[in-house]
């Protein structure tokens, strides 16, 4: 058919397609000007078209040939036949290398499974598309805010599902029962549920800290393993505080007083050195209510509470910093100057232009690399006088944000049993603490091992660990709309910083957040009532063409 199309009206294909001469043989149709029509015996000269086609084929092969990065570990020769797992993780650089070492230890620990660690950018969006498309990896490292949504959608496997397959430890059931028995009232500032006490916890061989447990469980089931956790504390420049004869602040009033003394401005009103600003680094605009005993979400009522008196008080404090104490334009300009230089040599804290900053434990790593001469310390977040006076906050139960990365097994993955085997290895206290040591982070377990504390290179690691174990550790709201709620909070923070009325702004934010929460709950009820005896997994499977 194709060959005939080239010979329309009996014109030789060379003329029709304007092929160059002298050419004696067309490889597509076999015709030759000298041999007449139709083509006879092929000649020996290859046409330009054939050369171009060959080059195109080679180019396509080069582009489409599977790419294996040099850093990717290959299955050893003697290990052929192992089950190969794909593990997507967001980390690169030093953090990625530390995780690769953990994976290497697992690969070397047994001869049945081989884990390929693959760094993936924008991982939550890609994981969602891969799971929804029915082609997920065996393991995926996500964020804690993904847990409620993924759990409710059954997009990941609850780890107790492995009970029936003989995979779950006894402690897992125990841990689950303990969680159900735990009450939210056991937690202090920030709210949330709590676990019990025991030797093992869920899939781990040691007990998770209560706040970490809360991040991994949803509706009484464990959906994820912890993949290091971190807490936020107040880092301070010792030399600067000495300059004004101050100790590290423990209350908001002390923090403000020290900050005011240390802040300097030039003749044009530009800040040349800041004591403390809530918009630097500006990554956790939802954090501040915890310092006043406020919470953004009431899990019991499934309600947004960002307009509560404690939250209003926190945002009034933010507004006062910008408007009354240092000026909106000056503070914005000062923060904007560091927009893309955080954690570099120009970082405001590392370079000595900011005396105090709320940051995670990783900051010590950057200080060691970029300005080792910097004298710094870390303390829990200062709290309001009223909260301090209430007796809810003490040295054993400081205030700070507790967050974690999580590791989950997507539903529909090719090798769930083997993925679970890796996850159990990954949740061992020894492995998690080694990873935490490499990342400069605190231990996610209720009782960090003595070796962990002794070997840790962070001078303030005990402060970060104290926040992990604190009943006042703030964890992010356990609702599937948190990401959107968080973005709205960021906008509200900007508005308040710029001069908007605090009560009105927070009331608007609360209303919109509640609409989102109610809408999500309504859809969830709709889905549940629409099941009519059919499991969600089955329906999901049907829609996605065999996901589960």
């Amino acid at each position: 058919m194709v060959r005939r199309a080239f010979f329309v009206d009996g014109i030789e294909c060379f003329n029709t397609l304007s092929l160059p001469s002298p050419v004696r043989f067309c490889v597509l149709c076999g015709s030759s000007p000298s041999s007449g029509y139709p083509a006879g015996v092929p000649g020996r000269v290859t046409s330009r078209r054939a050369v171009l086609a060959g080059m195109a084929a080679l180019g396509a092969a080069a582009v489409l040939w599977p790419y294996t990065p040099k850093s990717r570990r290959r299955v050893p020769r003697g290990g052929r036949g192992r089950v190969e797992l794909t593990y997507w993780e967001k980390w690169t650089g030093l953090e990625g290398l530390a995780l690769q070492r953990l994976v290497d230890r697992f690969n070397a620990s047994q001869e049945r499974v081989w884990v390929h660690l693959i760094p993936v950018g924008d991982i939550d969006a890609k994981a969602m598309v891969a799971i929804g498309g029915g082609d997920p990896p065996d393991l995926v490292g996500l964020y804690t805010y993904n847990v409620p949504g993924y759990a409710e959608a059954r997009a990941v496997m609850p780890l107790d599902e492995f009970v029936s397959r003989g995979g779950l430890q006894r402690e897992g059931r125990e841990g689950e029962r303990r969680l159900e028995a735990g009450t939210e009232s056991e937690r202090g500032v920030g709210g949330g549920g709590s676990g019990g006490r025991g030797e093992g916890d869920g899939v781990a061989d040691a007990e998770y800290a209560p706040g970490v447990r809360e991040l991994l469980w949803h509706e009484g089931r464990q959906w994820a393993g912890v993949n290091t956790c971190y807490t936020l504390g107040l880092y301070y420049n010792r030399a600067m505080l000495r300059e004004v004869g101050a100790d590290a602040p423990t209350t908001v009033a002390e923090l403000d007083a020290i900050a005011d003394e240390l802040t300097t401005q030039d003749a044009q009103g530009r800040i040349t050195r800041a004591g403390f600003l809530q918009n630097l680094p500006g990554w956790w605009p939802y954090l501040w209510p915890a310092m006043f005993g406020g919470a953004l979400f009431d899990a019991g009522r499934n309600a947004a509470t960002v307009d509560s008196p404690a939250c209003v008080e926190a945002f009034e404090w933010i507004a006062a910093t910008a408007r009354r104490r240092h000026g909106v334009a000056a503070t914005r300009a000062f923060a904007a100057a560091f927009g893309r230089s955080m954690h570099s040599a120009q970082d405001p804290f590392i370079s000595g232009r900011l005396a105090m900053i709320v940051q995670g434990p990783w900051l010590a790593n950057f200080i060691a690399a970029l300005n080792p001469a910097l004298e710094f310390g870390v303390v829990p977040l200062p709290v309001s006088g009223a909260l301090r006076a209430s007796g809810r906050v003490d040295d054993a139960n400081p205030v700070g944000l507790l967050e974690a990365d999580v590791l989950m097994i997507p539903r529909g993955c090719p090798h769930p049993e083997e993925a679970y085997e890796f996850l159990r290895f990954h949740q061992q206290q020894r492995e998690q603490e080694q990873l935490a040591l490499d990342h400069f982070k605190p231990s996610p377990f209720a009782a960090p091992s003595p070796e962990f504390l002794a070997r840790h290179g962070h001078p303030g690691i005990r402060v970060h660990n104290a926040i992990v174990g604190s009943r006042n550790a703030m964890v992010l709201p356990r609702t599937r709309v948190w990401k959107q709620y968080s973005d709205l909070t960021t906008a509200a923070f900007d508005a308040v910083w710029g001069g908007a009325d605090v009560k009105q702004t927070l009331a608007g934010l609360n209303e919109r957040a509640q609409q989102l929460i109610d809408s999500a709950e309504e859809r969830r009820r709709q889905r549940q009532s629409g099941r009519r005896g059919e499991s969600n997994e089955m329906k999901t499977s049907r829609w996605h063409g065999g996901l589960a």
Partner: protein
Amino acid sequence: MRESRRNLLAGLLWVSPWLVGVAAFLLAPLAITAYVSFTDYSLLEEPVWVGAANYREMAGDPVFWKAVRNTGLYALSFLVLGTVVSVLIAVLLEQPLRGRGLVRAIVFLPTLIPVVSASIGWMWLFNAQHGLLNAVLGRVGLPTPDWLGNPTFAMPSLILMSLWVVGSYVVICTAALRDVPAALYEAADLDGMGALARFRHVTLPMISPAILFNAVMSIIWGLQVFAVPLIMTKGGPNNATVVFSMYVYSNAFAYGRMGYASALAWVQLLATLALTGVALMIARRFVHYRGA
């Protein structure tokens, strides 16, 4: 008859990649998003039919209205200022000036720079404390605003940056200018027209099809702007630079609300079609086609 049928089949065969592409990557997604826009769907679980709830939700969504306002402002500014600037530069570069070839190359060059690099470069220019712009303004005693950090200045800053990449529009206008018959200018001279009258009554009508083309492209690109605000401001401060495409993306891939995102995308598509249609209707009165 068989011959014509054969030709038809051959023709269809040749255009089949395009047909398949349009069907698979345009028509099918359009149909699917139209359906999904009436559902609650997160990609992770089955869609639930919610009727027009997603469209109704927009009415009470403050970020939606901010995105509409910001996108409209950006598109309108890009359309008006971009058109004016590109025509003026093209006319200027058609004058017998020394080095105009070099200037034309410089004007076109920004269109070749990747948007990420350009955005980061402009972020440094706009930097409130260390930026070149404020350094110059400060030297001459003018106020030095926080261009990207202040909600009042953030969107105008992005619009200003967009005018930097009008090079391709300038090229189109230049081509149109060179196509204006010299006889028309000679006739205008004989009629005693001055430079401005010549521009108003000869040049503008003759290049109006090119201006229309640029205007339509400006509307489409202006309403779809995404990368520049995402890189330079991430939609802040206080959503002052959040634009429609960014809000569609956030809902789809950050919030897992594919249904709402699809409804937003359809509103965006219909708005773009409507505005382009309006532009074409208005153009009937003002655009002059030779021989028409």
